[in-house]
């Protein structure tokens, strides 16, 4: 079984919702759609108060090269275009739409038929993906059309679909692979055409046997796509780790996957690509897991973008009494929510509720130099040393020499530290400083 070679940890996977079907979440009376749906510049709103919109209509346009379209996920009247706090409480431009009925743009094909023919050229595909507002659904929400359009001097050889879902608790990708395997594979074929590559791989962790079976069955008709079973080890789904596991190639320091001829996309993204290209449906909904041991009804939902978190909680029996932390995403890399009234984004994959006992940070004690962080780091860094240098202050040259910029912030070091040292918290800050210095350096 394949896996990445350096580091990694084995948290309990807690896939509580693996056997719950994806349920369509009802459309609520109001949608709050953020313009910051993607990495890069937030979209520029193109609707005003009082405008009528349909499902799938553009309400935000890209405001830069790395940016994207935002579409309305509901039909109704624009009530406001204003700054509202996001999940961390920072003000972000939102379009607030009062829902009236559920009227979709005519060009969207809402039939369940699977469309297999791809009558488009590479340029047309990328244009359709851009117009569909597709972003990476694996976490970073990087605009997909940018990733599918590598610089001229670099050539892609493989497409890798990430179905590893190594974050504990989260089952959204597992469910879509079980429920819609062929559409995911057609999405992959579309992206292969866009990239002009002839070979694709889908990496799936071994703890999802039914997803593996469903994908393998569907892949029987797609000989150019190979399903690769991966060991259960975090962070198997990290882009660099996944490429190492499947192809044995290592993305260079400060480099991108395209430097080793690979483009990685999440399986959820592939499904969104299929819908955008074959069905003309922009990215307005995605599968989201709502889970946690303290949640009474753990479920998987198909959620429209712009649904308030608080309303999702209501649907699973409200905020549990003993819940102490509300996380958007998984427990290893998800963000703790500060504002429970924020709304879902395109890239939202899960909501996790944890009790104080499950999540509380313990008192930090002396480093016992056990080297467990060194052993756990999937980038081959020395977290204990980076922590020491960061805390000493002003050691930026040494931090750069120790390759702090290679940190992928996966959290393995902090997870494993027996002395409960907040390694990643400290390293993250030091990394931000070093990156700033590197970026501001005059180019040669």
């Amino acid at each position: 079984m394949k896996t990445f070679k350096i580091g990694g940890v084995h948290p309990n996977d807690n896939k509580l919702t693996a056997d719950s079907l994806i349920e369509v979440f009802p459309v609520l009376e109001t949608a709050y759609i953020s313009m910051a749906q993607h990495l890069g510049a937030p979209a520029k709103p193109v609707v005003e108060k009082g405008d009528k919109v349909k499902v799938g209509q553009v309400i935000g346009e890209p405001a830069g090269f790395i940016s994207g379209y935002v579409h309305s996920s509901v039909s109704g009247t624009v009530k406001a275009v204003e700054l509202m706090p996001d999940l961390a409480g920072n003000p972000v431009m939102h379009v607030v739409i009062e829902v009236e009925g559920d009227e979709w743009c005519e060009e969207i094909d809402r039939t369940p038929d699977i469309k297999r023919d791809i009558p488009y050229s590479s340029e047309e595909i990328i244009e359709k993906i851009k117009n569909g507002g597709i972003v990476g659904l694996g976490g970073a929400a990087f605009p997909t059309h940018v990733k599918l359009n590598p610089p001229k001097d670099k050539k892609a050889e493989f497409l890798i679909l990430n179905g590893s879902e190594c974050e504990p608790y989260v089952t959204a990708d597992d469910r879509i692979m079980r429920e819609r395997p062929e559409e995911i594979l057609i999405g992959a074929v579309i992206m292969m055409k866009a990239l002009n590559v002839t070979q694709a791989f889908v990496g799936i962790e071994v703890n999802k046997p039914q997803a593996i079976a469903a994908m393998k069955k569907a892949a029987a008709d797609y000989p150019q796509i190979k399903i690769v079973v991966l060991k259960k080890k975090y962070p198997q789904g990290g882009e660099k780790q996944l490429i190492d596991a499947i192809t044995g190639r290592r993305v260079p320091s400060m480099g991108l996957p395209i430097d080793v001829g690979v483009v990685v996309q999440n399986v959820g993204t592939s499904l969104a690509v299929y819908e955008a290209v074959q069905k003309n449906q922009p990215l307005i909904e995605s599968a989201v897991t709502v889970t946690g041991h303290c949640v009474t009804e753990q479920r998987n939902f198909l959620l429209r973008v712009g649904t308030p978190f608080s309303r999702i909680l209501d649907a699973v029996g409200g905020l549990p009494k003993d819940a102490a932390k509300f996380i958007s995403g998984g427990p290893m890399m998800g963000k703790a929510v500060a504002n429970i009234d924020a709304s879902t984004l395109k890239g939202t994959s899960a909501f996790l509720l944890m009790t104080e006992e499950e999540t509380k940070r313990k008192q930090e004690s002396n480093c016992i130099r056990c080297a467990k962080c060194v052993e756990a780091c999937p980038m081959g860094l020395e977290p204990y040393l980076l922590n020491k240098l960061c805390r000493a202050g002003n050691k930026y040259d040494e931090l750069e020499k120790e390759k702090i910029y290679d940190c992928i912030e996966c959290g393995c070091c902090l997870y494993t530290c027996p002395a409960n040292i907040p390694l990643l918290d400290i390293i993250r800050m030091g990394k931000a400083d070093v990156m700033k210095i590197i970026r501001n350096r005059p180019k040669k």
Partner: protein
Amino acid sequence: MKKLIVSPAPHIHSKENTKSLMRDVMIALSPTVLVSIYFFGLSAIKLILVGVISCVLVEYLIQKYLLKTKVTINDYSAALTGVLLALNLPPSSPWWLILIGSIVAIGVAKMTFGGLGQNIFNPALVGRVFLLVSFPALMTDWSIPQSWFREGIDAVTGPTPLAMVKEGLLSGQTIPEIFAANSFTTKQMLFVKMGGSVGEISAVALVIGFIYLLIRRVIKPTIPVTIVCTVALISTVFYLVDPMQYTGPLFNVLTGGVLLGSIFMATDYVTSPMNTKGMIIYGIGIGIITVMIRYFGAYPEGMSFAILIMNATVPLLNKYCKPQRFGKEVK
């Protein structure tokens, strides 16, 4: 409304902590402790108890009254030092000997450097070596293993196999003659040695502990395996060159503190290297120095010195050996 915690990821933590790791090492030592109690009876119990109590007490007193910092005796690390110190002493040691050893181990080797995680040298070994140079007669007064039920009979004292070899060679005997005269057998070396420290009595018990530590992922096999292989390799070479003068690999690995030292002392987190390359160099260094002291040095046994000498190189090894980084550098 109820308040939610907001903190950066990750939001979960492994169940391991300093205390659980130290406890695992104690559990791994328990077969050795039980065997030593079986063979040395009350004297082993007495040494281990005095060792643990005095180490914990010294740490408590220093933290509470001298440094006035948080008392951390609950992490079991001081207790572990006490057990290890006891296992490294001759079974006939008087109680005050281990008390002095504990004061040196915790007071000098650990707390003066800043406590847990800050010391350069293995505290239990510093304690042992201090006693060895200060009380050479007591520290080489080896009683022959006494079983539980024979406790009370006057202890019979005798040298360790390594000491017999050293003395035999000095008096002009060859290795086969010494072995024949003292009737060493492999079985004895595996299960019960003829004489030695409290914790060296059974190789099998030590290896059981080693396997436990590996299963629980407390330590990696790198350091012990490197040391044992190095000792075996070098002694094989010397043995093949002149079997009359040099003891063989099996004898060298199974006698003295090689197993106890490589499994439980050289792997001490604080004083061993933090990456694989460093661990290998460290292990090879300990193996070479141990065999050299045994063959050419004044002491019959060299493990403690070898570990302490290599402890001193650890900061350098950490600085110059780096783990394998992910991906090549691009200019």
